[in-house]
């Protein structure tokens, strides 16, 4: 799918190849995707014990992407509009997920999910084989692993807010030399407070992150990153800070994909510490793509909004929590590609076994609140996409922008 505006010298293409445009021209690629799903779970918050179940049908991850490149790819604009503000304003049913005042539901992403200006190889041949790059805009902070949206499972992992920092106003500088890439960034610490919200501009620069990535072998990538995020849950900036660390190893070569990651967030000077360990793998086979993920992540239990056990109080006015729970989630699924062009479609089924345990003290008791300490969820649906395939999300170095045809949205 390609349109060419000869006079303007703009090329709009559907695949990654379109971004490799002729030297003086501007090339652009677009893509769109959405997932239609039916989620059922017997792990429903609410208190009072007893068996409960909940089933919901939703459209999640409806995203439109536009990537434009100029000057032989040295300047790129990456834009992603996320329409979950309209499709899941109350979040996606996902026991264990938390963040941005949602709990046991994955929060909707902001409308302007990503809007970045990225430059690469700024010094050309002056610095030899070193590649210096900059990225400015609203997008991902160089910390942790790729956004779950560009990974195999539909269901987001519990550790999303331990292992990624996104939708921030960020200024990033990076340098790649050989197999090593070092990135550093400053950004605003506040997390989005609503799907339509923008970063608190007056807080820009109050937080930082750094990530070192090594590619020792083809397809193998390891990263370690650190971040200080000031008051992420209090937009005015009054809340406690998060000191975050992440390490991961990722392999992607041919049909194989695998990732092992560890993350740690220490909040309020270490008053609360949350850990995560996650392993996932996917295999692309003719016509379908099975995957599995095993995760053990901790999360805070906070006061819920009266009458809505899926939301926590915002703004916060205390730094206390009601306890820490550890979520063990084993997720497996498979997707079968039934449509290829121009609309790609892959029905899928995904099953998660979920266990909850208290760690340390606190008054929170999952037995009372959920009526059980283990449960399951099942998701069936179809992933639809057109145009370019979704790239890795969370990295702006030049060689990390390849698409994820082997493992993500079809």
């Amino acid at each position, binding site marked *: 799918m390609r349109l060419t505006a000869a006079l303007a010298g703009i090329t709009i293409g559907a695949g990654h190849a379109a971004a490799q445009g002729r030297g003086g021209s501007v090339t652009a690629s677009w893509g769109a995707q959405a997932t239609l799903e039916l989620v059922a779970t017997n792990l429903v918050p609410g*208190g*009072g*014990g007893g068996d409960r179940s909940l089933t919901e049908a939703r459209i999640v991850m409806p995203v439109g992407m536009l990537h434009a490149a100029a000057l032989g790819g040295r300047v790129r604009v990456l834009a992603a509009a996320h329409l979950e503000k309209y499709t899941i304003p109350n979040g996606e049913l996902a026991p264990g997920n938390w963040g941005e005042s949602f709990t046991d539901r994955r929060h909707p992403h902001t409308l302007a999910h990503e809007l970045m200006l990225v430059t690469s190889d700024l010094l050309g041949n002056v610095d030899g084989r070193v590649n210096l790059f900059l990225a400015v805009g609203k997008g991902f902070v160089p910390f942790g692993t790729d956004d779950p949206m560009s990974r195999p499972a539909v269901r987001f992992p519990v550790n999303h807010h331990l292992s990624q920092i996104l939708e921030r106003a960020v200024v990033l500088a990076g340098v790649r030399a050989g197999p090593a890439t070092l990135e550093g960034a400053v950004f605003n610490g506040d997390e989005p407070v609503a799907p339509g919200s923008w970063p608190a501009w007056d807080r820009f620069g109050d937080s930082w992150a750094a990530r070192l990535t090594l590619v020792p072998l083809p397809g193998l990538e390891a990263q370690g990153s650190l971040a200080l995020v000031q008051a992420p849950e*209090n937009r*005015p900036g*009054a*809340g*406690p800070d998060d000191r975050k660390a992440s390490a991961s190893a990722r392999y992607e070569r041919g049909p194989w994909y695998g990732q092992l990651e560890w993350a740690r967030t220490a*909040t*309020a*000077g270490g*008053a*609360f510490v949350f850990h995560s360990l996650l392993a996932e793998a996917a295999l692309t086979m003719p016509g379908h793509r099975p995957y599995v993920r095993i995760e053990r992540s901790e999360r805070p*239990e906070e*006061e*819920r*909004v*009266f*009458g809505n056990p899926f939301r926590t*109080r915002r*703004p*916060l*006015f*205390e*730094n*206390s*929590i*009601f*306890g*820490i729970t550890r979520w063990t989630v084993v997720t497996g699924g498979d997707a079968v590609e039934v449509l290829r062009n121009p609309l790609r479609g892959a029905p899928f089924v995904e099953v998660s076994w979920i266990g909850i345990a208290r760690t*340390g*003290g*606190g*008054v*929170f*008791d999952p037995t*009372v*609140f959920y009526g059980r300490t283990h449960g399951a969820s099942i998701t069936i649906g179809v992933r639809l996409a057109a145009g370019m395939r979704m790239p890795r999300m969370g990295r702006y170095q030049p060689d990390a922008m390849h698409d994820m045809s082997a493992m993500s949205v079809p």
Partner: protein
Amino acid sequence: MRPSSARTATLLLLAAALACGEGSGPGPSHVLTITAGDAQTDTVTHTLPAAYVVKVTDAASAPQSGVTVTWTVTGGGGTVTPSSTTDANGLATATRTLGTAAGVATAKAEAGGASVTFTATARAAAPTHLMKSAGDVQNGIPGQPLPIPFAVTALDQYNNPVDSVPVAWAVTAGGGSVSAASSQTDALGVARTTLTLGDSVGPNAVSATSVGLGAPLSFSATAVAGAVFIRSLAIPENYGIHDQFIRDGLAFVCAWNSGVIIYDVGNGIRGGTPANPILVDSVTTTGGQVHNAWWFHNPVASEKRYLFIGQEGPGSIGSSSSGDIHVVDVSNLDSIHQVAFFHRPGAGTHNFWMDEPNQILYAAYYNGGVAAIDVSGTLTGDISTRMIDSLSFGASGTYTWGLQLYNGSLYAADMLSGLWQLSTTLGTLASVAGGGNEAARFTSDLWVANGYAYTGTWDHFRRTGLSGSLLKVWQLDAGGAPVAVDSILVDNVGAVSDVEVSPDGKLLMFSTESGPNSGFWFYSLADPAHPVLRGRYLEPSGVHTATFGTIAGKLYAFGAKNPSGAAMIILDVSSLDY
């Protein structure tokens, strides 16, 4: 009855008696069967459209002609043909006219000792008037629904209730609102509406009207004096306001990371009033997180020099806590400054109580229980060595919310284990009684007065699945031990977050948060064992703490309104009827 029939009946009677053998007595000579007219419905006093018809036969089912059938009204009033005679087919008829009472109407047909009963249903006639049936003349709280709905009954001319009659309700005085502007009478003839009183003290009235049923009926209610809103004083949105301490016309606002902010609300130093608080000074103590305060009036040193600040640091409720006590010198209100701090490793402070004559500060310390601290003399630097004693209690851990010295005992409210009576001898602590007395919910704040203790519950996560929060009433026995005697359930809130009794001991106040019934609640303690609701002031954002203050002889309530829109709310409660 003709003679032949009488003879026939007599012979049949004898035959039946012989057939039954000894001891069975005489049986009926006829068999009566209803053939028409049963189970009709009509309006009261109407003659039923179909006649009652009964068939008289002999034992062999042969129709008996000329038999006299006697008809009698047995229920529901009205009339029926007294008697009739069977025709050649054995049929006898009667006319039934219903009485004035709606409901079941019965009549009996009888012949030769046999009988059958006809049943009819009498409907009420057209409604002619309304009658008040419930709810008139009540007292309530301004802006709140009355406890009893207003009810009218629609009646016909015979005072039978009439269903499906439309009734229109209208507020005619007081400016309130009704739950239903129109309603229909139910099967019992009753229509209802509930009045939410107007916001002002005074009479309220509601009329009930039904077209064609006479003049409107008027219900009355009175909105009795309640809390009067005076001022909402905005507090920086820096985690907002957690508590306030009111003394000598000064309000010490505990504004978390904005520190402690002192307002003149009637002291005179700045000319402030409750309606116009004026800033005096502020200071952010080390670490911020300013949660609570106590202005120490030292009778020994005759000084009002120190303000104790509780810092509520991060914690996991029920198991861990952090935060120090900070000491601020307020002897010069134009230049207040921190002079000392008290630190307990592994525990953070919460609410205070001061034994001022003995210069001992008692501090709740969450997972650290209770601490007694010597605060005599000059306080500078690290005063952590001044702890006299500490005490933890509870079989399944301690997480102490608040405490109060009363009648020689120290009462402690523990989130996990309930209300405790402790002894203190100049700060040396020991457990005496109580504890293990609130397992259904987590306990929050307390106040002790009049020989009774009042505690709240904090139960956002429903410890045992029960909804709502309690205000519990405890009678202190001769030894001071608490014995639960009453409780008040406040539904639709997550916590009774603060409890206090007015200085005269007659008015109980508690604050609530997390739910639609969040706000201030006021109860009369005319009977201290059984508080009676006298008013409430709802605040949807929730009120974290509430504190009485007497300014220029009037009683006010000061409350910490939760973010967003954090503020100190000031209410005049001097006109409450308690």
